């Protein structure tokens, strides 16, 4: 009967489709298992990212029930505890500007320094120098952030006060110290990226008459751009997320301004202050923490999506 033939055809097609999934060789079973395990690991990463996003979302929603998003995103005064002009103010713009200024300026210091250090270590430094300097630089990465904040206030601040007329707590304190702090991230990862470039590329350029510098900048660096870009991104993210240094050394200005030599707060600094402070939970003053955190989360997500797009374009294939 025709119905039966169709059923038979359907079953055969289904069998054919499923057959490609069935292991044909012994080793394929292991392969699938490995792939599943690795997938779970990656899934864990995503689950964590989502978990953080969600945990921030709940109190954020409750916060926006009490404070209007318009005031939050449009207001230029941030004073959640002390009334200014009659009421507490929840304008997040000063925090955003603070974050961008501090992260941006410290990256402007740290990325070039780290990059320059990486190039020097890889291309020009004698072996012994490299062997000593690289681990010493990595020590910078391990200094407790509390110590760096301490350092910013006791050593960097007096210097900035006398040379630039900065105030005791200033954004510039944090900028200088965070800038130095992210150098090892950039230098270590960039240097690994440069090392990974096959020497024939470099040798070829040199053989063609390039100076060492030209070979490096025109051949090796473009080849390692993916890793270098990743290091820049990680370093910038670290600068954005840094809490202790800002909390201790940058102060707490509440109005929108661009003067790094005056007090500044960043979104991360505020979150840390609120989380380790004395304010009772459940109030809008406390929930402001989550609202700011969520905003920061979304901001960095957009940044990462764009940069990921760019990085995909620069994936270099050797050979």
């Amino acid at each position, binding site marked *: 009967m025709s119905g039966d033939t169709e059923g038979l055809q359907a079953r055969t097609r289904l069998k054919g489709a499923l057959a490609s999934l069935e292991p044909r060789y012994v080793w394929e079973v292991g392969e699938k298992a490995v792939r599943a395990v690795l997938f779970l690991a990656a899934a864990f990463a995503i689950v964590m990212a989502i978990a953080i996003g969600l945990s921030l979302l709940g109190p954020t929603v409750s916060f926006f029930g009490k404070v209007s998003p318009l005031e939050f995103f449009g207001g230029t005064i941030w004073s959640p505890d002390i009334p200014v002009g009659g009421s507490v103010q929840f304008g997040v713009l000063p925090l955003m500007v603070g974050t961008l200024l501090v992260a941006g300026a410290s990256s402007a210091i740290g990325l070039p320094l780290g990059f320059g250090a990486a190039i020097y270590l890889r291309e020009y430094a004698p072996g012994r120098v490299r062997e000593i300097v690289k681990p010493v630089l990595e020590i910078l990465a391990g200094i407790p952030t509390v110590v760096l904040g301490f350092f910013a*206030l006791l050593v960097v601040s007096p210097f900035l*006060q006398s040379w630039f007329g900065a105030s*005791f*707590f200033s954004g510039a304190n944090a900028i200088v110290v965070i800038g130095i702090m992210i150098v090892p991230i950039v230098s270590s990862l960039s240097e690994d990226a440069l090392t990974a470039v096959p020497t024939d590329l470099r040798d070829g350029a040199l053989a063609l008459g390039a100076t060492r510098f030209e070979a490096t900048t025109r051949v090796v660096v473009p080849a390692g751009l993916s890793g270098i870009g990743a290091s820049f991104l990680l370093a910038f993210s670290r600068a954005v997320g840094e809490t202790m240094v800002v909390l201790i050394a940058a*102060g707490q200005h509440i109005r929108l301004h661009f003067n790094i030599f005056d007090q500044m707060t960043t979104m991360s600094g505020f979150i840390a202050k609120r989380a*380790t*402070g*004395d*304010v009772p939970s459940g109030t809008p003053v406390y929930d402001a923490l989550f609202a700011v955190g969520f905003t920061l989360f979304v901001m960095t997500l957009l940044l990462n999506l764009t940069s990921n797009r760019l990085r995909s374009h620069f994936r270099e294939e050797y050979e």
Partner: protein
Amino acid sequence: MSMGVIIAVIVVIAAVVGAVAYYAFVAQGGAEIVVVDGSSTVFPVTFAWAEAFNVPGQRQVVVRFSGTGGGFEKFCRGETDLSDASRPIRQSETDLCTSNGITGIEEFLVAYDGLSVVVNHNNIWAENLTVAQLCRIWTSNTSAGACGGAGAHVTRWNELDPNWPAQDINLYGPGTDSGTFDYFVEVILDPFDEAITADFLPSEDDNFLVQGIAGDQYALGYFGYAYAIANPASLKILAIDDEDPANGDGPILPSEETVKDRTYAPLSRPLYVYGNGRSLGRQVVEDFLRFGFSSQGQVLVGQTGYVTLNANEVQAQLAKL
């Protein structure tokens, strides 16, 4: 040597060290543990007590400092036994406790701190301030009737006294998340029903406030007594006049005596430790508090830079146990 060998060596060494450490100290397990959390101002007191009270293998008091508010949050979830606090517990926090089944909350006074108003030691003009003047310095109210009629917010030294310099008063103080801040507002500004100004340099760490004031001739700030007297070469403490003749006449400098007999007012700040029904029911917790109020415990309080209770107050606390 290949990578595998290096790793193997490291793992073996780590395992050996770990095993030795474990077995050498495994006897420490089984001790009764008391968890204390809360204010970073009060923790030196419970810390000093714990240090002397702990006996390895028998009783261990573990001390943390999540902040007064954070401490209460954990206390009200039953995660801690005692909560250090630089301010009294709030109604909202008591409600949280009750809703979690934590009842029988008992407040213990453990020490006093003479909150000191401090200026740079090169500040040769100011010697003392009245509470009303302090209010004027720290309020945001710019109307002439502020601070009970004393006058509007002042920004310069010469607005308080025409003989003083025509310079801005640079204010330093603890941040809004600190119990010290809450207390200062409560005793200096709240009595006049004024709000605090936002125009000061805040820091969570009193040592940094010291640093800031020490470097600024026109600065004024406030923090705990221990920090104020630790730096006589760079700071000067102002005497405070609470304008209440019943409580000691004229401006009074903070010292152990004036804080103890409460003539240094209103800035003699009480420090508390809270327990609840469940924790206080444990013998080890009661022993710990008894130790704290014993003469040895009181000596320790003095060594941390705070002022001890007088004999009557100690009796009153012991009666609560």
